[in-house]
């Protein structure tokens, strides 16, 4: 990531107080909040399903993975529909965002690897940290976050995070 020369085209979204950047090329569309169908007994990280143009799409809440508070949606809440790789298979998923900002270039040189220590979040969920306008932007490692094969459950990760907070 930091080695690549080209700037990263990223969509910036806000989750609680943090700015996140997701690869713009993976974003399919951005939706206003739609009715969410709860999936009983599902992990809180992927607790819902939504209808995106006739497709049933899982709705993920990254805030769970980053141990954040999850207030009720408000007028800024959006759903970012994007392609994520789940266990090697491209899958369409929705991501809840507290607010969607803009599409921006993040200079490759400004992206640093996530520090192994001193971070509030599981380091393997963070691909890198970019800088823009003096602030930090977290680049989440979507593949790791959506990985279901490594045996760790997102719920466990959450409690782990919460207890360490």
């Amino acid at each position: 990531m930091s080695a690549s020369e080209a700037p990263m085209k990223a969509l910036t979204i806000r989750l609680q107080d943090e700015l996140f950047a997701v690869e713009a090329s993976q974003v399919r569309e951005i939706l206003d909040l739609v009715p969410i169908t709860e999936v009983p007994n599902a992990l809180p990280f992927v607790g819902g399903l939504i209808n995106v143009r006739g497709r049933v799409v899982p709705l993920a809440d990254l805030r769970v993975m980053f141990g954040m508070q999850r207030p009720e949606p408000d007028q800024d809440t959006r759903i970012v529909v994007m392609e994520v790789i789940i266990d090697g298979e491209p899958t369409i998923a929705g991501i809840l965002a507290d607010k969607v900002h803009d599409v921006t270039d993040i200079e490759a040189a400004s992206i640093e690897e996530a520090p192994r220590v001193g971070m509030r979040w599981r380091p393997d969920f963070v691909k890198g940290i970019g800088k823009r306008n003096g602030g930090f932007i977290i680049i989440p490692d979507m593949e790791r976050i959506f990985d279901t094969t490594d045996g760790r459950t997102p719920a466990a990760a959450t409690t782990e995070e919460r207890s360490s907070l």
Partner: protein
Amino acid sequence: MNISDPTETFRQEARELLDLLEAGLLDLEQDPGNGDLINSAFRALHTIKGSGAMFGFTAVAEFVHEFETAFDRVRKGQSEATKALIGVALDAKDHIHRLIENPDRRITGGDVILSQLRQVVEGTPVEPVAPSPVAERTPAQKVDTTRLWRLTFFLPSDALVYGTNPLLLLDELAQIGPITVTALTDRIPDLDILDPEVPQIGWQVDIEADDPTSAIDDVFLFLRDSMELSLVPLERAPAAAIDLEEHTQLAAAPRAQEPAAVPVPPRAKAQEKAETDKPAASSLRVPAERLDELMDRVGELVIAQARLSQIAALSSDTALKTIAEELERLSSGLRDTTMGIRMVPIGSLFGRFRRLVHDLSGELGKPIDFITTGEETELDKTMIERLADPLVHLIRNSVDHGLETAERRAAAGKPAKGQVRLSAVYSGAEVAISVSDDGAGLDAARIRAKAEENRLITPETKLTDGELHQLIFAPGFSTAKEVTSLSGRGVGMDVVKRTIDGLRGTIEVSTRPGEGTTMTLRLPLTLAIIDGMLVRVGTGRYTIPLAAVEECVELPEGLEGQAKGRNFLDIRGSLVPYLRLREVFGITAPRELHQKVVIVSSGEGRVGLVVDQIIGNNQTVIKQLSKLHSDIKSFSGATILGDGSVALILDTAHLVASGQSYVDRNLNGRAA
């Protein structure tokens, strides 16, 4: 999704041709003298060779060439299609299959097969029999002293458009032997009506060679069907024109000075082509993903239409109502058509099993009659693909365990040849596929003994015949005394059961001692759409597959407040366990005063599902859940409702199983 990858196209085509070849060989075994069968097998080989070479599958082309050469002797009537030959030919077919699937790997064994093939073919020389159309072309006439051949050809009018270069063709001809080429210009029209994209020049080529027939055949492989071509040996009477291929009609031998004097009547040719290529002309190859996409779109349309109907029903605008009804009619028609596209006759699957039975019969030394019926029965494509493995298991079981050895059959007064029947038939909204044999039947006592040995049941357990037979589907269950290479390891039947459950189907076993066993799979016609019953639990709406619903009853008042331990309903005298979906789903919203119970069944078991409200019936387009939710077993999928929201589809098989285990826990708990 690269659908235009030419090698993949070749592979697909080759697979079909190989299937054709296999079917042809198996038919040939029954009817060894049938010239049509021999020719169709030969044609399949020839096409594989040609296109294989074109797409760089050289190993395939080389092998097939040898295969073809050997098989040519059969075609010419020099050898007979003996059982041994068919056996080796089937091996060769398998080898080609391996070569095509793994072009990069070095696959050995080809030489052995070829030498066997040669041995078999050459070991049984027979005199050319009665002059059949095939036998007429005996090499006695062909491979004689003729050294000079006159080839005359006109390219099809679209040849240049498709990139054929006549000069390259001439170069290729030059490689067969020394040639003298004369351009035939007499068909070139006046300049003002000349179409430069149509090849107007004919070619007359004198070739020096022993027998250039097959070599020339190869040069024109892709043009042959629509071109004019004639080949005459020059030092013989010109009337002895020789066909390059039986189904290609050739011009009557032209005299040397009047090239192409008698052009082939194009109509006759077109007809012949239409006959041989019928499937190609009337069908279209479409990637399955596109069909899935189409199905999705139609699903969306149906949903949007349902919303429109809802709105129209509330409105008093007659124009709106009319158009809503019109749209409803159209979209339901479109849905049926789209579903129809995905339906494939099950015969494509049955064909594969002929080979399986053929091989098993040889391996086990049990002569078998394999009879299939209902090949035209259509099922959803995905369903057919997923049925292949379970059916293999069932057929193996029938052959290996079901049928007795020839001696024992004789002792029992049965014909020595065992019978295995595979049939498919519609029954209501389901398809019943059954595998039956006329063997010894299931041995109830042995199943029981084995089940007790495996601690599946206790000696006290009372079982009906049906329950006892279902035990063979338990994991690790096998009554075979010895493990053969085919079966007896106890894996298989449980896999069958699981796969069929996954397809929302059921398995029935019926058996009569000494007369045989029939296993019947009952499957829904399609995986894509089901009729569902929409229910509400808390604030969530869920769909229950209607096929699984037996009845709906009100939850008796008295049971509402009762403690968990006694969740049984008395349905006309039989105890049915029930699950409170509110508890299963962890719903805390206040419950409805009068709760309903939907009794669902799967296989032998039944369970009641307690819901807050029964909303009604709906047609449901099933959407698979993503991997993120694949760990949640209570749901088999999701669907989109008329108002655009998503509802989950309950997996009744799973719920019945968990209800059953609940029963077991409770009854055993009480017994202890």
